[in-house]
């Protein structure tokens, strides 16, 4: 059976490549968070977020990083927020009940979403302020986690992608692509979360935290990983399909099967022949000029 061989090169792939990428992230971290802070400052007023863009220093092991965040606060949900929340939650759940067939996975996702939001609705209906988390701490927490992910994800890529028979540049490229993608995604994600929580009150925070925080990052990783794993390589696993061919789509029931006719079975001329090219060009020219039968 086909497989791979253990070589010393694998040690390089598993440790050297992610180490280089991870060290690069740490070296570039200050410019990266500076860019995030500039981005936040640029979008703050267009999004209608009050306050300023503040920065707090967080220590991550031997390193310290000044994480930017919006200083604006999120308010405790008022009656109108709660009523809107109930309406959206119940509607989402009700819609999911009518989803059948191909939409069933989406229906299940909507029900799960409704369940998480239901917990938020109940909590904010019966609890009293203050909530344990504020918008600034939430946003900073998301970005601190993002920084940790940026530093560690090259190792995850190494242990799930670099173990295969890809070329060295491909292994570097996928790790760099994932890191690069997250560098852009993380501030966008934080801004969207902050804007929604600011506008829709703290009522939206549990849903965002549980379903659109880490899960989104995980999706990005799996999607890029899946794309990378579909690349060609020069190794033993880069083979043609060793599996039996997929059965062709079934012909629709109730429709008459076409019978071969002389026109449908005529030989197709070799397009490389000069004569056939000339005929093809002449046919195209005639059709362009409005001659000949298009039917």
């Amino acid at each position, binding site marked *: 059976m086909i*497989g791979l061989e253990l070589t010393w090169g694998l040690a390089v792939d598993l440790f050297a490549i992610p180490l280089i990428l991870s060290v690069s992230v740490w070296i570039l971290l200050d410019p990266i968070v500076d860019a995030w802070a500039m981005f936040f400052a640029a979008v703050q007023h267009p999004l209608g977020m009050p306050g300023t863009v503040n920065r707090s220093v967080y220590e991550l092991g031997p390193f310290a990083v000044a994480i930017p965040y919006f200083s604006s606060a999120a308010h405790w949900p008022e009656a109108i927020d709660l009523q809107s929340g109930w309406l959206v939650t119940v509607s989402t759940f009700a819609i999911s009940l009518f989803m059948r067939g191909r939409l069933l996975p989406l229906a299940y996702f909507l029900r799960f979403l409704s369940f998480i939001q239901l917990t938020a609705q109940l909590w904010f209906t019966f*609890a009293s302020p203050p909530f344990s988390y504020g918008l600034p701490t939430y946003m900073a927490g998301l970005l601190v986690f993002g920084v940790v992910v940026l530093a560690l994800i090259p190792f995850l890529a190494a242990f799930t992608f670099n173990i295969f028979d890809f070329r060295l540049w491909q292994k570097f490229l996928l790790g760099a692509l994932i890191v690069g993608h997250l560098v852009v995604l993380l501030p966008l994600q934080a801004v969207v979360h902050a804007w929604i929580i600011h506008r829709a009150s703290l009522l939206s925070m549990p849903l965002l935290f549980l379903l659109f925080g880490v899960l989104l990052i995980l999706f990005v990783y799996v999607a890029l990983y899946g794309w990378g794993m*579909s690349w060609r390589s020069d190794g033993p696993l880069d083979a043609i399909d060793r599996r039996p061919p997929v059965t062709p789509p079934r012909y629709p029931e109730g429709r008459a099967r076409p019978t071969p006719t002389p026109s449908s079975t005529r030989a197709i001329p070799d397009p490389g022949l000069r004569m056939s090219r000339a005929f093809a060009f002449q046919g195209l020219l005639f059709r362009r000029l409005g001659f000949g039968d298009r039917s």
Partner: protein
Amino acid sequence: METIVRIADVGLWVVLAVLVVYTVRHYFFTLNRLFGRHRQPFIDVVEANWPSLVVFVPAHNEARVIRDSLDALLTCDYPADRLVIVPIDDRSQDETREILREYAALYPDRIRPHLRDGGIPGKAAALAEAMADHEEEVFLVFDADYIPGERLLKQLVAPFFDAEVGAVMGRVVPLNVGTSLLTRLLDLERSGGYQVDQQARMNLRLVPQYGGTVGGVRRTALEHVGGWNIDSLAEDTDLTVRLVLAGWDVVYQNRSECYEEVPETWESRIRQIKRWAKGHNQALRSYLFSMFFNRRRLPWIQVLDGVLLLGVFAVPMVLAFGWMCTIVLFYAGYPPQWSKVTILLVSSFNTVGNFASFFQIAAASRLDGTRERIRMLPFMFLGFLVSTFAVGRATLSRASWLRGRPLDWEKTERHREGRASSPGLS
């Protein structure tokens, strides 16, 4: 409130520990499949003194698919004078019985249908009844929608030359991959489950699972462990565990491919996975204690793998408990536990589905040479979500945990267009 928080905190750590064990297991299997030495006993034996063989094909309302299966079996290269094909009609209400009679008339020496009109319904009961009419030592079992390759019978019989082998399992490959999103996802799941998971368990001498659909059993071994368990919804898992506990080897042959029709609709898939979950949970309830305290002193690694195999359909409930703990801790005012949530989510992605993690599926697809299908990987989340709900509902049902024969049997729907008549093989 403090007690609830404490319980949630401890509960979450326990859940994470369970999920991490499964994730590490998947990763270890992937590495073994990629870099390890592969065990394929007697796979290339072509000439031998082949034993007399009975192939059972249990069928209940299988008129759409049974012709393809019988035709394929008739073209296998097993010596014709030592092969008997026994399709078992278990009270079909469609044309299955007429088709079997037609084939029996065409091939009287090779096809001998067993027609059931009474008795306990279900595959295990049907097999037990049909087996009583035959004396052969080795028999194979195929589902009615399975289409074996030409060499498959020899490949599945060859491991029985080793007297310690009690059961053999071949690989299942979906035939209708391109039909829908679901069939594509199931193709990826099957690929990960067989190409990597089963083969790694075979390599490591753990517990390869006899799947009951494209495999064989030695009569002596079956009788030694007490025959078919007709009370079980997953008679294959049940038999696997009993064979392992009794000291018999179970062999998986990765190159012995058989082609099946996977569910094309989510509703059909949910019914299928609920049935599997109920059967697995029954086996977990019945054999967990025996696995830990087995008299034959199985290697601890085999015991661990057996327990993890049995517990695989309990994982979604563990996962659900983990989510509940996370929600409680979040509202209780713990600092946002990003790291724990990460582990929970990554593990969620890795442990459910057909229990193949995303890297395992990707590895299997590359080994199969179907690298472009790996781009479907993010959509596995949909399959995971549906499986979790389905398994959860099945786990909470009565059939999962109570003793006795289950009251319901959900047959997997067939989608293939039925053929009018046999092509007239000679």
